[in-house]
């Protein structure tokens, strides 16, 4: 039980000041401020640990952090939706400036031009990267972004069924199901090649590069969808856009993605930022915030939140989404990252990933007992390899060599999506963070099982 005055270093009011301020209210103790709470429910027992000093806090948290195996502690080949890429030091140095970090959503544009202009830049860069007409200010993450894309396809087409290609991340698919369950939207799994789409399908949902690392034939998928009046809804690793034709090139209607590869730490799964782009004609069906450029009373350029009638605080139950707080700080991180890397750098990073991954794949392919089931397809930085023994066992051995292997596809929900002959698949991801020595260490580890 807590008794007496506790002076937190986060709270300025002292005991004396509290007393003085209470006196202006005609009160004598803090507890009186809570008299509206029925007495029997007031001041319950609170079973929380005692306060800690910052020294103790830092030690406890360092100890907790120390119990985790950081990717930086050895070569890693784990991807599958979160990617270990290099992040220039300026990203953190700039995004942690108090003026960015401790501002709220830019509701008062006159004193939020910093955040607003950053979002406008973000919209510019993301739409450019995806080859799309318009991007919003960001969603929660790649998975929810795609789910909202599916919902938006239903709104645009006024249909109630979405078809999801079987090469979409099963984690993303689960999230789509969750998002669709309340509104009774049907979610169908279809083959990625020649997907079954009909006149009731609101959107064909695909991922490219897909979950297995391969590029989809977006032109074909788009044609099939559009033939039936459905939208083509894509999820795409934005970094692939550093070298490959962007989804916009194939007339995709909604392109979403996980922004994490753009300068955001893997951080055990979040915070990331969802990317969301579409065609101009669908703007008013877009979820989440949009920033627009306009002028102030003196004619100077300035930025504001706009088209807010789409949003929950205006439209309430008829809003395009319930999203309010999004991931603005990580939209900033992605913007800084894309600016620093720039036109040349992003292509270089993408190509480093490409060449290293293909080098690794070529090496694996030569190992007896291993084969690459999707060899005829074009992949970016991830590929599936069928292993001679259970991937879990291989990964265990790799760890003994301090190598973190690829994702074990031998279990549900992954195994369900692979052809029967790929029953011991491993999804290997290679990025610019992997040196040749890293790859050689992986190969040596795999070779033990040849």
């Amino acid at each position, binding site marked *: 039980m807590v008794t007496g005055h506790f002076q937190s270093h986060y709270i300025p009011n002292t005991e004396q000041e509290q007393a003085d*301020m209470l006196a202006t209210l005609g009160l004598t103790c803090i507890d009186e401020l809570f008299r509206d709470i029925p007495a029997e429910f007031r001041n319950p027992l609170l079973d929380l640990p005692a306060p800690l000093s910052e020294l103790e806090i830092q030690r406890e948290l360092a100890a907790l952090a120390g119990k985790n195996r950081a990717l930086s502690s050895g070569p890693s080949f784990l991807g599958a939706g979160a990617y270990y890429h290099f992040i220039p030091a300026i990203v953190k140095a700039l995004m942690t400036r108090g003026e960015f970090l401790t501002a709220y959503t830019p509701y008062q544009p006159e004193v939020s031009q910093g955040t607003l202009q950053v979002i406008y830049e973000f919209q510019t860069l993301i739409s450019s990267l995806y080859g799309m007409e318009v991007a919003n200010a960001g969603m929660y993450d790649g998975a929810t972004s795609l789910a909202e894309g599916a919902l938006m396809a239903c709104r645009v087409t006024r249909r109630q069924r979405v078809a999801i290609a079987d090469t979409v991340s099963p984690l993303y698919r689960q999230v789509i199901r969750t998002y669709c369950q309340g509104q009774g939207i049907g979610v169908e799994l279809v083959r990625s090649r020649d997907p079954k789409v009909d006149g009731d399908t609101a959107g064909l949902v695909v991922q490219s590069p897909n979950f297995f690392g391969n590029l989809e034939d977006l032109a074909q998928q788009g044609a099939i969808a559009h033939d039936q009046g459905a939208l083509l809804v894509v999820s795409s690793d934005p970094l692939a856009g550093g070298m490959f034709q962007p989804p916009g090139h194939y007339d995709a209607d909604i392109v979403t993605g996980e922004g994490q590869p753009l300068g955001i730490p893997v951080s055990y799964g979040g915070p990331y930022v969802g990317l969301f782009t579409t065609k101009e004609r669908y703007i008013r069906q877009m979820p989440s915030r949009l920033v627009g450029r306009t002028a102030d009373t003196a004619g100077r350029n300035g930025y504001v939140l706009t088209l807010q009638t789409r949003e929950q605080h205006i439209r309430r139950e008829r809003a395009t989404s319930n999203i309010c707080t999004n991931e603005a700080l990580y939209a900033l991180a992605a913007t800084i990252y894309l600016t620093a890397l720039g036109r040349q750098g992003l292509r270089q990073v993408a190509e480093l990933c490409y060449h290293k991954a293909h080098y690794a794949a070529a090496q694996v392919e030569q190992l007896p007992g291993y084969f690459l089931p999707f060899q005829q397809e074009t992949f970016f930085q991830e590929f599936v390899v069928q292993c001679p023994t259970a991937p879990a066992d291989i990964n265990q051995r790799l760890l003994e060599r301090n190598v973190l292997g690829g994702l074990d596809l031998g279990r549900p929900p992954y195994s369900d999506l692979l052809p029967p002959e790929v029953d011991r698949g491993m999804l290997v991801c290679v990025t610019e963070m992997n040196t040749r020595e890293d790859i050689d260490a992986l190969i040596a580890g795999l070779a033990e099982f040849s």
Partner: protein
Amino acid sequence: MLKGGTRDSTRLLMERSVPGRRGAVTPLLDVPAQPMPPAALLRADLALPEVSEPEVVQYFTGLSQLNFSIDTQFYPLGSCTMKYNPKVNDEVAFLPGFASIHPLQPAEHCQGALELLYRLQGFLEEITGMSGGSLATLAGAHGELAGVLMMRAYHQARGDFRRTKMAIPDSAHGTNPASAAMAGFEVVTLASDQEGNVDLEALHELAGDDLVGVMITLPSTLGLFDRNIVEVCRVVHEAGGLVYGDGANMNALLGRTKLGELGFDLVHLNLHKTFSTPHGGGGPGAGPVCCAAELVPFLAAPVVSVADALPAKGEADPDWDERVFYFLDTPEQSIGKISGFHGNFGVLARAYTYIRTLGDAGIKSISGNAVLNANYLLQGLRDSYHLPYDRPCMHEVVFSADWQKERGVSGLEVAKRLLDYGFHAPTMYFPLIVHEALMIEPTETENRDTLDAFIQALREIDREAAETPELVRQAPHTTPVSRLDEARAARQPDLRWRP
């Protein structure tokens, strides 16, 4: 100030771009170059900017200075709990052992992270008086979506498919009806009574067998503790419905009462408000959901579970028992995965650090001082601004600019004029049931000097509204830009730079 050269922030990135400049250097390829894919698959050009690293730093530093923020201004934005965000929490989130772990690494690699999440779940359950929780939801509204889907799943699991109506007070935040709609429910509005409480009569009318439940914000967005709350819960339960708590305003109640004991069935918390994780200009957040025992099986996946010897809830002994094993689990009847991985870990780690720092004593002192500061403002401003609900408030106070409006100056204009005084504006025109609402939330981390200065500024503006109304109507005058043409922005959307 006359702005110098390229430090001038007005030019956009693509306008600063010069072919050939670069802002980062990548390593050379250290493996043999591999065959390239067919040219048709490769993109021709990439319209990204080309600027050097110094220019990147200068540009974004310059932009940052155009913002108001907690670190630089008093930011009494109602409903947003703009309290001080401790720097140590950021430092913790950036530890390599947290920032560099992959969400799909085996649980054996992430015991420290999982332990943190497990304990945080426990802390939040203790604070809300609930039995279980999931940290997978990424903001308040996301928590709401999970929550309403859980309510749906709960009813359906009992074979009850008739319930389609969600009752939501007229004072509720927009995300509440929007979330209910996303779960497929029909939203019915619940009126508030004269005192700002839920109108019990209206509730009785709605409390039928088609009622999914109610979504209640406590304290309400009027900054008031609903005196009928226990009765509200009783009525809803009697009708077979569930009571959802929007916990965005929990800063008022920390350690003072437990929603679970009052009768709430489930609640989401906004860690980016109550638990002091930075807003970052609009996110990231984290909106964990805590719930009573009967709803636990429906929680969003994943939750963190523990095998073997269980530490007591809320236990904080840093000498954790090594025999304990933490893992990610899917509740039996889970509504499913609702985000890509396991929640906004970096935000959750900050909130954990915050709760550990404050501890039992500190947690209670948050709510005490937050409510004290708000009432101090109420008292200091009640003579100058109309107080529509004349009751002591909780963590925030909602005034109306009605009196100023009569003199031709709107609430919006009052708010804009505050910017000239170096204060961020209150939340305006919300809740919707108050005319010309000015919703002011000082938080516990502001000192009395600041509160006094703020009171003085608002009184001054009141005087200006009478004596020099034009000055107020055309405010702000001292900000980087003046009032912006929002109508034009909406009419002719310019949403990205174009060559």
